[in-house]
């Protein structure tokens, strides 16, 4: 296929993905807006007002970047894992597999679909957060770069999960038992300065720590970890997830018999 034809195929997959999550917006866009509003009310306004400052900011200002990032991570992951597993389950993935479209185009179509949902939900959550606090962006470059890299990373992770999943249970195990604990322990609600040294070092093994702190740096200009290290870690995991996803597609593992 020519580059132009591959572009048409990519746009077809992407358009289909966007149409899918917009069609079921009450399941894909609304829950994050409601959940995050509750976080803002409970942790930001009610409890946050008693906590006082954290890292030199009000508690509300401190948690908002982490909560936005939490929405990006969960939505980009959830979009790809549910969509790709759904197409595997219904065998409609065969429509793509029998066509001449390149594997990298299939992967990018799904991943960019997940990224677009992550960004859309992030915009909704950010708008909701403006009802509770004032947001001032410290570095637009860092914010945009972290959002794009992180949503890509977790969209890829969702793809890998979908390839290995055999049932709908399998696509909820990772978000429930792996992703959510990592997010909560990734410094969304607290600064790592509060942790004893041992647990602070353990936390550095959690990739979400780098994601949350890099984004917090972009918004507030403060971070518990070095920015180059954070970018390096996110980039490393993204490249590794991309390479593994391509390996799965090229080998046909769990997709072809």
């Amino acid at each position, binding site marked *: 296929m020519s580059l132009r034809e591959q572009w048409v195929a990519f*746009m*077809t*997959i992407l358009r289909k993905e966007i149409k899918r999550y917009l069609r079921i917006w009450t399941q894909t866009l609304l829950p994050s807006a409601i959940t995050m509003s509750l976080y803002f009310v409970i942790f930001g306004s009610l409890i946050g007002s008693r906590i006082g400052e954290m890292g030199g900011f009000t508690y509300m200002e401190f948690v908002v970047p982490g909560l936005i990032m939490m929405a990006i991570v969960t939505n980009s992951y959830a979009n790809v894992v549910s969509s790709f597993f759904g197409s595997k389950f219904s*065998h409609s993935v065969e429509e793509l*597999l029998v066509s*001449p479209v390149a594997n990298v185009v299939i992967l990018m179509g799904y991943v960019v679909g997940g990224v677009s949902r992550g960004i859309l939900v992030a915009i909704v959550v950010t708008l909701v957060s403006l009802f509770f606090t004032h947001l001032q962006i410290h570095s637009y470059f860092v914010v945009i770069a972290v959002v794009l890299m992180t949503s890509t990373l977790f969209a890829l992770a969702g793809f890998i999960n979908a390839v290995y999943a055999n049932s709908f249970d399998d696509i909820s195990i990772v978000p429930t038992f792996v992703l959510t604990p990592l997010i909560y322990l990734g410094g969304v609600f607290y600064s790592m300065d509060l942790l004893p040294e041992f647990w602070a070092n353990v936390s550095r093994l959690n990739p979400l720590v780098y994601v949350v702190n890099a984004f917090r740096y972009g918004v507030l200009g403060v971070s518990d970890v070095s920015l180059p290290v954070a970018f390096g870690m996110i980039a490393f995991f993204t490249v590794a997830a991309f390479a593994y996803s391509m390996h799965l597609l090229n080998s046909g593992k769990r997709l*072809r*018999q």
Partner: protein
Amino acid sequence: MIPALTIENLSKVYDNGFEALKGISFEVKQGDFFALLGPNGAGKSTTIGIICSLVGKTGGRVKVFDVDIDVDFPAAKRYIGIVPQEFNFNQFEKALDIVVNQAGYYGLPSALARERAEKYLRELGLWDQRDVPARMLSGGMKRRLMIARSLIHEPQLLILDEPSAGVDIEMRRSMWTFLRRINEQGTTIILTTHYLEEAEALCRHIAIINHGNIVENTSIKALLRQLSHEVFILDCAESLPEAVALEGFVARRVDDHTLEVEVQKGQHLNQVFAALESKGIRVTSMRNRANRLEEMFVNLVEGAA
């Protein structure tokens, strides 16, 4: 003229050790209407799966219009349209979207995709249902939707895996008419079916696969010529005597008005009627006891078992 499909020593061993294909070879000529027959589990769907990349082969070679799938599978895929046995589209998508999206996967620009989608949905009687989610369509409509989808990139080789499964007689006949027409227009068609009447009505060549081996590969006419005998059922005008003996034929009285006569290869129906005439038996209608191809198929498959 290069063949539409060339299969050489194709083998497949699944991960569980099951040997689905044991080095089969056959060729399908351009413009042919070809039947691939075999009992359940014989290896038909595995063969089709390998041709269209849903199943990985263990050994052998597959060429589509001389393009080796090991050398340039994307180029080979452009020649192929596949209608699988099971419905494999998103049941929540609209019929039109399913067909247009498939065009997109082949890189067709949007305007051309919509033009062709309309053409094939109209030809298959689905245009009025274009905005209906696929799950709301009847079984026959879903089957025709898969045919429309498979034709959207105008493939030169169309492969249909059990296209008549779950389709009523009227729908089946209109599907046959449609398939005959696109075959006449130059599309090579490969068909697997359990309805041997369908293979006999549509196909010119046939390969019979059993236990992963090709047990017959010939023209339908040549295959039917191999039949050693045919059994006819005759409906008679008057009540038959208890014992009916026809000189030169094995005849069996089924009931008062029905007679079964076995005609050996080389014998003629005129001789049967002459013998009936001599006994004063008048025949109102006659038919084959079983589809001729079905009889041949059973002989070949049971012979190989």
